């Protein structure tokens, strides 16, 4: 089978995409990628997490290079809801991106307002609920780790977002991941975003004190964590759409997540090294599938759980 014959199209709830490669939240507002790829050519563009008010983010250092990964603690720097709606979303819409708006908040009331405003904005095709609040100093930082609390957040968001706009719940928390996924789906999540990100720390060589005492580790270092997490959730809930994210650098990395049960994947840290990474992964995935004689992405999803792929 030639790569051109491979059908890359995929669906995550009502989010229909020409290919299963999305950006991961926190990789700019879209314009940064424009010199290197067409955002419309990606499956979807996921925005940095938008908060109700502008957020200046964390002080330094925010980023530490670790073996095969990046430890980060940016503190969700973003222009706030108004800044996003007037400054970033119109550009994405004009460029034809399928925009998934990521939202983050510290209370149910804020999640509701963000969901209503963002979910009703033209150009937003899906809403991703950032439940990873571990890096934040808010008193409710455990909101995203507790199935009951996470379920409540998703219920509030789902109620405010119009039908036809899927709500994706981005989960944190091993080892209770499957329970968490079950809880958010029960409360209306149309899909779960399952991440390999894990907490991490680094010590500074000159001061011998932590440079980042509590950050998030991403990149190739956590790819196997992501494959495992996707595998577990898919095994427990085979009908729930999963988006896998963690350490995807190549087409094969993406296919691995699909075979484990993801319907789509997100590319994040790889874009810090190669800003064109997401577009490259689309083409590499096409070649991988063609070489393996797998005619479509749909056939690959979860195939590793059964008898492999029927070719």
């Amino acid at each position: 089978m030639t790569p051109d014959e491979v059908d890359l199209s995929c669906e995550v709830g009502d989010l229909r995409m020409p290919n299963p490669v999305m950006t991961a939240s926190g990789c700019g507002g879209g314009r940064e990628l424009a010199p290197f790829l067409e955002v419309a050519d990606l499956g979807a563009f996921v925005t940095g997490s938008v908060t109700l008010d502008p957020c200046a983010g964390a002080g330094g250092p925010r980023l530490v290079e670790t073996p095969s990964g990046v430890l980060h603690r940016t503190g969700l720097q973003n222009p706030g809801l108004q800044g996003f709606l007037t400054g970033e979303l119109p550009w994405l819409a004009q460029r034809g991106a399928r925009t998934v708006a990521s939202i983050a908040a510290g209370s149910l009331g804020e999640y509701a307002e963000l969901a209503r405003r963002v979910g009703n904005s033209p150009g937003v095709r899906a809403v991703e609920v950032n439940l990873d609040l571990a890096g934040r100093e808010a008193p409710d930082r455990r909101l995203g780790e507790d199935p009951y609390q996470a379920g409540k957040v998703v219920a509030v968001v789902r109620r405010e977002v119009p039908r036809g706009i899927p709500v994706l719940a981005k989960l944190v928390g091993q080892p209770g991941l499957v329970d968490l996924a079950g809880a958010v789906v029960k409360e209306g999540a149309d899909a779960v975003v399952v991440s390999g990100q894990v907490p991490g720390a680094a010590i500074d060589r000159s001061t011998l004190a932590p440079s980042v005492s509590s950050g998030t580790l991403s990149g190739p270092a956590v790819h196997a964590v992501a494959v495992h997490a996707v595998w577990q959730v898919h095994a427990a809930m085979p009908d729930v759409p999963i988006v896998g994210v963690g350490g995807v650098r190549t087409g094969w990395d993406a296919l691995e997540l699909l075979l484990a049960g993801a319907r789509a994947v997100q590319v994040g840290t790889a874009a810090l090294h190669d800003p064109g990474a997401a577009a490259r992964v689309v083409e590499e995935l096409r070649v991988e599938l063609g070489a393996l004689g797998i005619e479509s992405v749909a056939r690959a999803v979860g195939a590793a759980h059964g008898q492999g792929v029927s070719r």
Partner: protein
Amino acid sequence: MTAGRPGPVRVDGEMLAVKRAGGYVHLTMVAPGVAERFRPGSFVALAVGGPLSDRCLRRGFPIYRVRASGAYGGTVEVVARPGEAGTTWLAGLSAGSPVDVLGPLGRPFALPKEPVACALVGEGQAAAPLFPLAERLRERGCVVHMLLAGADERSLFGTLEARRAARTVLVATEDGSVGIRGCVADVLPDLLARTGADVVYASGTFPVLHAAARAAEQHGAWSQTAVPAPDGCGTGLCQGCVLPAVGEDGLTRMVRACTEGPVFRGDRVRWDDIGTVPADTWGATPGVAR
């Protein structure tokens, strides 16, 4: 490669030469597309460790020189200080080795519309981008004065080349091994008074840039300061290189050195607050990181 688009390109380049230059190394790379888009002050971000590398972030270097065409295609040159593992790896490459180049990145030096007198202040190898700047300034009829500073003789860069690049050259070392004994803060005010410079261009570490911006302000001159080219993505994605700067509206924002910089107006950067988020920054809510 993404030829035809505006802005930076990522190219699979080739190391052409690695030469010692005092305590530094001078790297020349074939990188088609970078030279054509270059303006003084912009930088390149180089991948380190080769295709099987576990290093996820790039290393930033201000561009020292470009040649748009030649026997090898467009080339780009940088001056690096080995020490950090990734930079040491680059310095150890042999001619002909592949090198992954992303650039030119960032906001370049703003050039004066009138033929004015300019003082160019460079600390160590960070002086490198001042040489192509000096060329552009001279083309515009500007008078160029240069101050090259460093801890000692070995840490100076470009002292010979400066004689061709500038009308007057001042060298200052902290240990007094060559030139005047002192640092930028000590010698720049006198240089500005003597030359009547209208614009100060500076490239170096934060303390030196702060001193240059302060001296310019006291003298009544504009300042354009190039902060160190950040390591990270270089493209504005990772938000790892932010620093607090005051905008036209008087509000402080966390801005990216790679995208809004690396060249900033010296009077806009809150030099004393670098590494922090000042309480009056737009979007800084005490206690809650939102």
